[in-house]
Each structure stands twice: as C-alpha cells, then as structure tokens.
C-alpha cells in the first residue's frame, strides 16, 4: 500500500519566551492511502494541532509533513489552498457553514471556485451527494433551518465534492447525540469503503471503533497505537472491536 501522508518528527510550539512550549513534540506517523485513522487523547494533548499540521492548514515549527510526495512546508499559502481544495476534505465539530448561503450553495462553494463552466455538473453531483447522505430535502434551505446532524451531513457533502483523497475530521460527531453520531459514522465508514482515506480526531471510543487504526496522543507525543484492522460493520463485529479498544484505552490510562 502506498503512503499518503508522512509526518517526520513534527514539532509545533505556541507561546512566547519562557511560556513557549511544544504542543507537538516530535510526532512521526505514516498514513497509507485507504487508511481509516482515529486520533485519541485527553483534552489539550494536541489532537487538533496534529490534524491541522497533517492537512497543511497550519505550518509546523520542526520536522516535515509530506502529502502525496510533496513537502507541504515548501508550498506557498495559495498552493496549499489549491491542495486543500482539490485533494482534501474537512469536517469539523461545528458545521462551519456560511450563513449567507443556502445549503446547496455551501456544498458547491469550493468546487465553484474553479468550475464555474461546469456549474450544471457540479450541481448535479451535489444533489446526488445530498441524496446519498439523506438530506435531499434541505437543498434550498437556509443553514439556520437545519438540525445539527443535518448540518454535519452538509459539511460531509461539501468535503466530498472534490472526490478528495483524504477527509480530515475534528470531532465530527462531538456536537451530536448518539443516534445522529452513529448515522454520521456509518456514512464515513461507507465513504472509507469506497476508497477514501479518513483521519479523524475523537474522544469517543464508539466513534473510534470504526477506525482501522487508533493513535493515542499525550502531551504532544504519540504514546500508543491500536490496530483494529478492517471490519464488516456488523453489530457483532462492532461490539467485539469496541471491547478490544476499551481494553487498550484502559491500558493507555483512560
């Protein structure tokens, strides 16, 4: 399997003078194409920071991140933007949608940036995605008129528009109840099955259960890794995986 993201000894620090400390303190990790990685760890351990570093959204202070063979630190702001727009998708805890735009327009916004000539195809694609994610009826609605779970699906549709190689998620289910959370995770699992790499941050073992690989991060270092392997998403399989994961988490000190 070819490697999609390589992080080598990544350091990221915040603060000034004596206050300055390494939030990421020499993180190295390889993520293969088609992987489903969950990043876990206590609050403030550096999960979000790592995600931003891996996706090139934030510059690192030491080490390097290579995406698809390209060292992200060598790219300009605009080149990074292009990479994000064409190769990556993002789903955040909050919907991060633009209030001024309708649901449909929010979804197609990044694609319209370069694809105005293909507006019709783009719109069609968005409709199909909304159909598959179960929010077809929201198309013309305002983003303020949808539920949290629905908005998260809107975010996923937007992330999928560019057929990204990888989807990054930072607590994508963090603001949802367990039913909605399950639905979203099932959706992400489907997306993964279709070949998309997924990297997501979560503190919820139920969510991490869907991943094939779980990284544990503590004080800016990766302190453990749990390989769950591929799964068939049956209830039975999930229960078994959950048991194994929670055993490992206890080991990690949770």
């Amino acid at each position, binding site marked *: 399997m070819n490697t999609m993201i390589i992080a080598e000894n990544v350091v990221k620090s915040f603060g000034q003078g004596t206050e300055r400390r390494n939030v990421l303190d020499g993180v190295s990790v390889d993520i293969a194409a088609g992987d489903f990685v969950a990043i876990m760890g206590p609050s403030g351990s550096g999960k*979000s*920071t790592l995600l*931003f570093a891996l996706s090139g*959204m*934030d510059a690192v202070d030491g080490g390097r991140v290579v995406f698809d063979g390209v060292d992200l630190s060598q790219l300009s*702001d*605009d080149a990074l*933007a*292009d*990479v*994000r*727009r*064409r190769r990556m998708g*993002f789903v*955040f*805890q*909050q919907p*991060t*949608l*633009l*209030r*001024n*735009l*309708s649901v*449909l*327009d929010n979804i*197609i*916004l*990044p694609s*319209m*940036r370069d694809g*105005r000539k293909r*507006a*019709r195809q*783009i*719109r069609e694609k968005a409709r199909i995605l909304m159909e598959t994610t179960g929010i077809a009826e929201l198309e*013309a*609605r*305002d983003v*303020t*008129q949808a539920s949290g779970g629905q908005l998260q699906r809107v975010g996923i549709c*937007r992330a999928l528009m*560019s057929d990204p190689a990888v989807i990054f998620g*930072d*607590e994508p289910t*963090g603001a949802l109840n367990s039913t909605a959370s399950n639905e979203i995770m099932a959706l992400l699992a489907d997306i993964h099955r279709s070949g998309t790499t997924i990297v997501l*941050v979560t503190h919820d073992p139920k969510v991490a259960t869907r991943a094939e690989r779980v990284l544990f991060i503590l004080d800016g270092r990766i302190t453990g890794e749990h390989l769950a392997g591929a799964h068939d998403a049956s209830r039975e399989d999930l229960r078994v995986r959950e048991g194994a994961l929670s055993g490992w988490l206890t080991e990690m000190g949770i």
Partner: protein
Amino acid sequence: MYLRAIRNDVLRSKAISITTMLFVAAAAMLVALAATLVVNLSGAIDALMQRAQTPHFMQMHVGDLDRARLDAFAEAHASVADHQVLEFLNIDGAQFVFGSRSLAGSVQDNGLTVQSESFDFLLDLDGEVISVKDGEIYVPLTYLQDGSARIGERATVAGHTMTVAGPLRDSQMQPLLSSSKRFLVSHDDFEAIRPSGRVEYLIEFRLHDLAALSAFETAYTNAGLEANGPTLTYPLFRTVNGLADGLMIAVLLLVSALVIAIAFLCIRFTLLAKIEDDYREIGVMKAIGLRVSDIKRIYLAQYAALAAVGGLVGYALSFLFQGALLENIRLYLGESANASLAPVLGLVGVALVFVAIVAYVNGVLGRFRKVAPADAIRFGNAPKASPGRRRLRLTMNGLLGTNAFLGLQDVLARRNLYATMLVVLVLAAFIIIVPRNLHHTIASESFVSYMGVGDVDLRIDVTQAEDAAARVAEVATAIGNDADVARFVVLTTKAYRASLDDGSEGRITAELGDHSMFPITYASGRAPSSDDEIALSVMQASDLGKGVGDVLSLTIAGRERALTVSGTYSDVTNGGKTAKATFADETAEPMRSVIGAELTDPALLDAKAAEYAARFEFAKVSDLDEFIQQTYGSTIGAIGVASYAAIGVAVATTVLITLLFMRMLVAKDRHAIAVMKAFGFTNSDIRAQYLARSAFVLVIGILVGTLLANTLGEALAGAVIASFGANSFAFVVDPAFAYLWSPLLMLLATLIATVAGTWDAGRIRVAENLRE
C-alpha cells in the same frame, strides 16, 4: 464578567473608537464655531450700525433738491427722529491716485464725503467717529486691505493732494457688493475738489421705531419727493453687511451637518457590528436575567464617554480656529457687543451634539430587544432577518465569478451594515460634486444673468445728469458706428407711479428697452415681449405682492395703463427692486442708462473698454468679466478653494471610513474567512471578495450620490446662491468632473482603502479560527 468583556472589546477596537471620537470632535468644533460666528457676526453688525447710526431709510438722488420741502415732510411725520442730506461727490476712479497707483480699474463708484453731523457716521477701527483734519483723507478699509492705498501715503484726488490718514468703516457701503465707496475728507478739501466731481445726494432718515419703516417708505413715495436714484433701507444694509461672513457660516453649517451625519454613521456601524459580535453575550445576559435597560446602559456609557470627550476636544479646538475665522468680522465690523455670549452658545451647540448622539445610540440599542436568548446561544450569531427569502443562487450565476458572487451575496445579506458605508459614499460623492458644481456655475459666464445683468461684453453706464439723454444718444451713435461692435442695446431706467391694490401708490423704476438681446435668467415666466407686459425683480414682486400673470397699474405719460407681469427675475443691482419693460415713453425723466454691447472679437475687449472710457469721460465703462471679477471675484475664489478642500475632505473621509469598515468586516468575518481558506480559497480570492463588496456599494453610492448632488445639491446650493440675491438657480455641471473624475477619484480611494483594510485577511490562520 460579561461587562468586563464588553469593556475590553471597546478598548480592543481602539481605531474605531478613536475615529468615532474624531468625527464627534470635528462636528462639535464646527457647531461651536458656527455658533460663535453667528453671535459675533450679528453682534458686530449691530454694534457697528449702532455706533455709526446707520440711516433707516436712504434715497439717492441726482439733480435739483428742494430742502425746504424735505424738511417740511420730515416735520409732518411723527415717526421721523432725524433727517439729513449728505453730499456724495462722485469722482472718476482714475482721478484717485495713491502713491503712483490709481483706482482707474475699479468698478466701484468712488466718491468723497465729509463727516456727518448727526448720524450715518464714518468710523475708525476703534469704532469712534472720525474727526478729519484738513489735508487728511480716510480710505475705505477694503482699499487698504487690497493694497490700493497705504497709510501715510500721498493721495491725489482730482489734482488735490492729501495724506492717507487711516482706514474708515462705513456701515452702509463697506461690502464689495454695494457698489459705492465713500472716502472721508475735511470740509475745505471737499469744497476744493467739488468742481471736479458730480454731486449725488444721500437723503437720509432715522425713525423712532424701525417697525414704521414700510409705512414711512410708502409715505415718502406718495409725497413725490426727490427719488431718481436707488432707495436703500436699514434691513438691506444689515443683510449686505453680513453677506460674506454669512456665506461662510452657511458653508460651515453645511459642512458640520455632513460631519455630524458621518459621526452618526460611524457610531451606527460600530454599534451594529458590535451588537452582531456580542450577539451571543447579549443573549446570555438576557438569559441569566439582566434587563434590556441594564445591558443598554453598559453600551450607552461607552458612547456617552466617547461623545463627551469628543465634544470637549472639539469645543477646545474651536477656540484655536476662532481667531482666524473671526478676523474678517473683527476687522470690517469690529467687536461684537455680546461677544461674551459666544462661548456659552458654542457650549450649548456642543451639548446639543452630545445629546443627539446619546439619543441616537439609545435608539440603535433598541435592537437589543430583538435578541432572542435561545437563538443567540444556539447559533452564536444573529439569525437572518427573513430566512429562506429570495436570494441569489451560486449556480444560477453565469456572469459573475464566484468571488464577485460571494461579495454581492454578502452585501445583500448584510444590507444594514453596508447601508452605512453606502451613505458615507453618497455623502462623499455629494461633498465632492456639489461645491465643485457650485464653483463651476458661479465662475461660468452665464451666471451673471442670474443677478439681473445680461451677458454682454462691454457695459457703459450713464448716470442721471442734465443732458443725460443727449449723452446716451452720443454714446449709442458711436457704438452703432463701431464696426467692432456686433450688436448693442440701450436700456434706460425711468421711474413710474404704480397704483397698488390697497389703494395706495408706489414707485417703480423700470428699465426700458429690448430685453431679448442680452437675456437674463428668469426665476419664473419670461421677458416682457410686448408693450403691455412688465417683468419684476423678485424683491419688487414680493414687495408688491404680484406674481406672473397679475396685472399692475402704472401711470405712463400721464395715463394709467394696465401691464401684465410676464416674469420675475433675481437682481442684485440698484437695491434689488427693479422692473423691466419694453414700452416706449418719451415723457419721463431718465434716471440712468446702460448701453450693453457685444464685440465681434472678444479679444478687443480691453482696447475697446479703454477707448470708450477715454472718449466718454462722463460714462462708466466696464467690461463684464472685470465687473464680475471685482464684485464676486473673492467669493468665487473662496468657493473654488472650498471646493478643493471639500474634495480633500471627502476623499480622506472615504478612505478612512472604508479602511475602518473593511478592517471591522475582516475581524467579524474571521470565521467565515477561515472556513473558506480551509476549503481551498486563496488569499487573493478573499481579497477579491472584499473588493467586490466595496465595488458594489461604491457603484450604488456613486450613482445615488451623483444623482442627489445634481438634484438635492442643486436646491441646497440654490439656497446659498439666493443669499447673493439670485433666486432661480440651475447648476452648470462640469460633466467631465461630475461623471468621470469624481467617480474615478472615489473608485480609486475606495479600492485602495479596501485593499489596505483587508490586507489582514491574509494573516488569518485557519488553525486558530477553526480549532475545536
């Protein structure tokens, strides 16, 4: 805790707070200055006219004078307190020589007079009645100011030598707009020069009570006393004395109104932005049980402090500039009797600005009522006014780029916020275009037609004299035979009795001749075209209570004739009460005649003017441009300077407000910008979106501003012009400026400010704004 959060917020938006304060200070300063000027101007005029004992009624007259009859008339009228006849010895400008310079180029009627004994005194700069010694000549202040004469210099008037002893203040004839200027000499010197000049009588009355003036005027007219020159009255003197500075005050008030408007807009948009920003906090405060009035007070206190500091700074600044603006008033009119009132009134003006601001802030804060705690906490920002309403669709948009679309979308979605910037741009366009149009109009040649003077090249005035008719004929023949004269017209002014509706009689001076050759601009109606029509000056018409279409009865050649009023026009000449008609009448004595001529080649103007001036010494020959230049030149110049200053102010305001506005938007939009960047929009995309927002607002702003400037601005400028005496008014628009340079200038200013103001957007880090 929340209270502290909001306080910190105000401190954080320092730039915006300081700008708001600056505008408040500027507004307060202008209002204080205007108040100070009004008090000083009116006070100084009153003081001057008080000390000079300005006549309440003055009739100019040339020719025979029956003093006994005048005395008897004054005796018979209880309202008369005092009366006198002064002599004004009219002398050709060329005969006044100071050092080696003469007044030959002056369009004023210059003349000598002696100090009056009972009233209408000529004063020195201390406001004292001048007592003049033999060999001394006191010179109107203007001539000392413009360097025509200097104190201590040798003055030769018609060959008689004296020394310039000092300046004089003349409560009647001081302003350039009044066409005569009095020099003060001793009795002996006056008598020595008398043979070289032509005596004009100033028949003057003081009344016990000014309220009796109009009754007195009627009585004087009906008595058929000497009256072949203009009639001037106390209120008119007062107006003319205040005109130049009054204009300055009017401009100041106009500018302060605009600055106040901008200060309000600043406050409005910072407040709206803050309410949007603090939406969640406000919701939380409401949720935990604070009352709207409690929350309001927190915000109100900030703005009250801002307004108070700004107001006081502005008030203090007003003292700094007061001196310069009052200089003119102090010099020409003297100290005001109630000058001590000025600082108080200034403070009252500033207080009014303060109260207005606080009331306004309070009104805007009323929006707090609309904050629903549930929404505020759930979404953290204000829900849209009407969700799901008609809206632009990204996909339906084939014309605009995605960035332009997003810009437009944002402008439409946050109309309230952008309306503020729009109004600033409209005001700026207004401030740029109106003064410029005003200047262009006043400076244009046709403008003089608004003031009762046709657009001729050369103008020859022959005033009343024994053989006036013969002299006019002589000039007319010479002009008629001159191959360089394209066409000319002779207009002769004669006086007629008019029977008024109330049964009394009035006196009308009508200018007879062909009024179609060098037409003036009519406020209403048109020029008289047949023998039974008459046009009235606006002042005359309102005096008679007549309008277009009304009938007026005149006694012409001993016969009563009904004339229809064909039109009204503005006039600033001869006291402003005039009429124009075409009927022929050989019986009435002419008061004065004007020969207007147009030359085949305007380049000959100077030569021709000199030629006729030399040939007809009894006539006053002026070329019209010179006449305008001398009478209005300084005003036109001042308005020119003001118009450029206005452009500077407007452009600076546009840049400043746009800059602040964009910075504020970027700060507010951090999250949205981060979202877009996260999904692959580049910094130049973001900048393009902001440029699009500015451009949309700008386009509307320029359109509306230009439109308003040419309609409302025209009306406003018309009001200013009306104070010159011109009542009908239309802009002569400088199209290249109004439709090309002004929009380009604003475009440039706005776009530069937008780019500068949104530069920070590039520095917004996605990671910091989207971190969970």
